């Protein structure tokens, strides 16, 4: 039996696999692209984006403190974990804005509730059933059949709502043989035009996805190790001229309660996968990267000090990342609260000083051109007092 990749390339031919090259300087609003990566489980921001210049850092972090040799310095205070070399290269190319001490409005410590608030854009958990990204896409001209795509079996909350969105995911089920698909296409063409057109669309989407090597993800069972492959698929969809303008993907494995490691270990490996994922996306976007922004967010941070098991527990303020050729990068965005015990939130967590909604609103306003009135009401309900962060994008 042929695998999906062969089958789809053969079935749909070259037409579905060719993409126009975006011309510089001619960008209009629909040339802008957005990828949102949700890190589920609460990323330890003090490990990913260590404030090694903070006088209290080494003492507070104890066994989890990173040494100078373990980090890639950004400025006098902050550095990137050394497992993030590709993000560091983006920083040097002014395409990355690391963000620190940021949080949603949520102040408790449940993953479910925290992710719900992060994605719905509302102030409290389970306040609504749609997400901020769907609401933002709905506020733009509906220029294509699906405004967004989720690289998962079901659209996550952030992408759910009234605006049309698609999903694509590598399958847990085995491939369908090329021969069977051809026979079904003939049957559908004869009996059921609607099913025929949907099956053609599926093959088109699979052809877009497969061309990035995602065919090998079938039955791989590798969990979040697929992040780089999935990121390439996301880029393929975003480059498709009639495809979506925003994509969402998830990455798990951040809930590091035990033995998270410092320079090396479980967390370092996961950071490396994230680094590979964003870089694979950048490479696949090609020239369209210049019109692209990536938002990497997590539901909340972790305790500032290690716990008794070499890990960290659920905390409050977190780190986030903005990447992309469209950004005015090469700087850290932080109003650093410090790590002295008096500066910690509830004597245990990094204190939030940036509302992550202000950052997202800044990207949605200046990059995606979502109207301010929509941002303040339907995208992030009742958020007029949370002003968008200015000047995140290149002029």
């Amino acid at each position, binding site marked *: 039996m042929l695998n999906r990749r062969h089958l789809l390339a053969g079935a749909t031919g070259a037409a579905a696999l060719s993409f126009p090259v975006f011309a510089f300087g001619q960008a209009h609003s629909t040339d802008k692209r957005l990828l949102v990566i949700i890190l589920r489980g609460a990323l330890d921001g003090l490990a990913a984006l260590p404030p090694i210049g903070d006088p209290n850092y080494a003492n507070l972090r104890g066994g989890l403190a990173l040494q100078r040799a373990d980090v890639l310095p950004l400025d006098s205070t902050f550095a990137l974990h050394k497992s993030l070399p590709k993000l560091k290269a983006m920083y040097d190319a002014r395409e990355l804005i690391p963000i620190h001490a940021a949080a949603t409005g949520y102040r408790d410590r449940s993953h479910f509730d925290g992710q719900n608030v992060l994605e719905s854009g509302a102030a409290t958990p389970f306040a609504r059933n749609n997400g901020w990204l769907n609401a933002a896409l709905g506020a733009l001209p509906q220029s294509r059949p699906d405004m967004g795509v989720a690289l998962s079996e079901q659209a996550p909350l952030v992408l*759910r709502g009234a605006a049309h969105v698609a999903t694509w995911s590598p399958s847990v*089920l*085995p491939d*369908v043989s090329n021969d*069977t698909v051809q*026979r079904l296409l003939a*049957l559908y063409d004869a009996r059921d035009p609607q099913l025929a057109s949907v099956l053609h669309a599926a093959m088109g989407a699979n052809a877009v996805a497969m061309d990035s090597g995602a065919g090998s993800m079938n039955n791989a069972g590798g969990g979040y190790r697929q992040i780089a492959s999935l990121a390439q698929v996301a880029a393929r969809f975003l480059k498709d001229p009639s495809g979506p303008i925003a994509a969402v993907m998830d990455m798990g494995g951040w809930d590091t309660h035990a033995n998270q490691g410092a320079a090396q270990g479980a967390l370092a490996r996961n950071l490396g996968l994230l680094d590979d994922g964003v870089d694979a996306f950048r490479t696949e976007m090609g020239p369209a990267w210049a019109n692209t922004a990536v938002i990497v967010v997590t539901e909340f941070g972790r305790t500032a000090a290690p716990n008794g098991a070499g890990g960290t527990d659920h905390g409050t303020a977190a780190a986030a990342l903005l990447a992309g050729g469209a950004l005015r990068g090469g700087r850290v965005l932080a109003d650093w609260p410090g790590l002295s015990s008096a500066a910690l939130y509830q004597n245990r967590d990094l204190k939030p000083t940036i509302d992550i909604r202000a950052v997202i609103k800044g990207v949605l306003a200046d990059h995606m051109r979502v109207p301010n009135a929509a941002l303040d009401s339907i995208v992030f309900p009742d958020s007029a007092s949370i002003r968008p962060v200015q000047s995140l994008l290149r002029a």
Partner: protein
Amino acid sequence: MPDMTAAALAAHRFGFGPRPGELRAIADDPRGWVKSQLAPTQALPAAIAALPPAEDDLLAFGRWLVQRRLNNGNAQQLEQRAARQGVSQQLQMLTTEQDFIQNFRQRVSNAVGARLEAAMLTDAPVHERLVHFWSNHFTVSTVKPAAIALPPSFEKDAVRPHVGGRFADMLLASSKHPGMLIYLDNWLSIGPHSLAARYPERARRLPGGQRPTGINENLGREIMELHTLGVHGGYTQADVQALAAILTGWTYQRANLRMLLNQDVGARNGEQLFEFDAAAHEPGAQTLLGRTYAQDGVDQGEAALRDLAARPACAHFIATKLCRHYIDDQPPPAAVERVARAFARSDGDLRVTMEAVVDSPEAWATPFAKFKQPEEYAITLLRAANVQTLPPNAGVGALMAMGQRPYAAPGPDGWADISDAWLTADLVWKRLEFAQRFAERLARADIDPISIGEASLGPRMSDETRTAVQRAESPAQGLAILFAAPEIQRR
């Protein structure tokens, strides 16, 4: 004279498709076969009867919440507690995660298996489809963590007994079940002039330790928008506030968590766990949709819900949903009108109401108008293939891939009941993968896909499908084509 065409339509449109041999039995009187399953009481399927009671789910969840609170509470308090108990914080954390997975993922997985098995084996598939319909109408979803354990017992306690009974009884059972009270936050609702508001220590603690404050409109709003009148049902924000006030104090028994935690699991069902907490109830009369409710206590809410169920907007809303489900995405107005009249005249008798659906000529005149939802599609194949037993945890992954994990509807409005939601590229592709995998598992040299197709579809199998199945290179491919054929995917 036996009518095999009508039998196939009846079996797929009103049931989950026939098991082998069933079509002939239906063909003598297809309409009568459907109607014979609309009676108020049906025996509880064995797999469903074996599920744990709601109380067990609540106890397990309460225990988990307490542990979670230990883990995520104030750091200092937490350390003190851990030291006192001689347990490291880390150990407690791990225990919590394990406990959560064991208690709830496996619990819901078992319930999904029971639901699939009941639908796969039942001799009353019309009844079972109605259970699924009403369970979706009154959605309680595992997607909300606080309600994660409760949808199966909600379905068993609040939906099953009433699918052939009165709508108002189902509405009351739903609104009093801990599943709904938790899913739509009513257990957090405190009347602004209640004793519990004036003396906050009178408010009952939640399992997490805090006390709720303030009124919560969620259940009041959704009862009108999603359960009875529909979003255009003619109510205002003031009516939402009035119904929310009327329902304050509607909660479930949780007076003493410690006692509950140590109690043996009883056999009570969820509806019997309802409790009216007078201290949280907003005192005084309320005006809802122009009618004044001056009753004391729980009577006020019961009267208000019964009146909502009797309003013409409710009859129209329920009739529209039933006709959309059983006839067409765009329900024919004449059929809706007829069904709404039956609902109104019979005081919301769901047997009479469904008889009106079955007696609508439109229900028999729009073949293949509906595209099956993933779960009913999977059940169709299981029945067609005469599967007798399901391995543990079967189907959950495949249904998730096809976009419909049972008991996990994304919001309180339930799963969409129009083909647009399901006839999408990714979901249809996953169905083909499922069809092929299932076909490969079944295929043996002596299996005859054509006879399986005839037993399920009768004369409704198209010539094109028959030819495509006959020309397949193997029985497995023939079965895969049959299982992906339009007339199996639609009804």
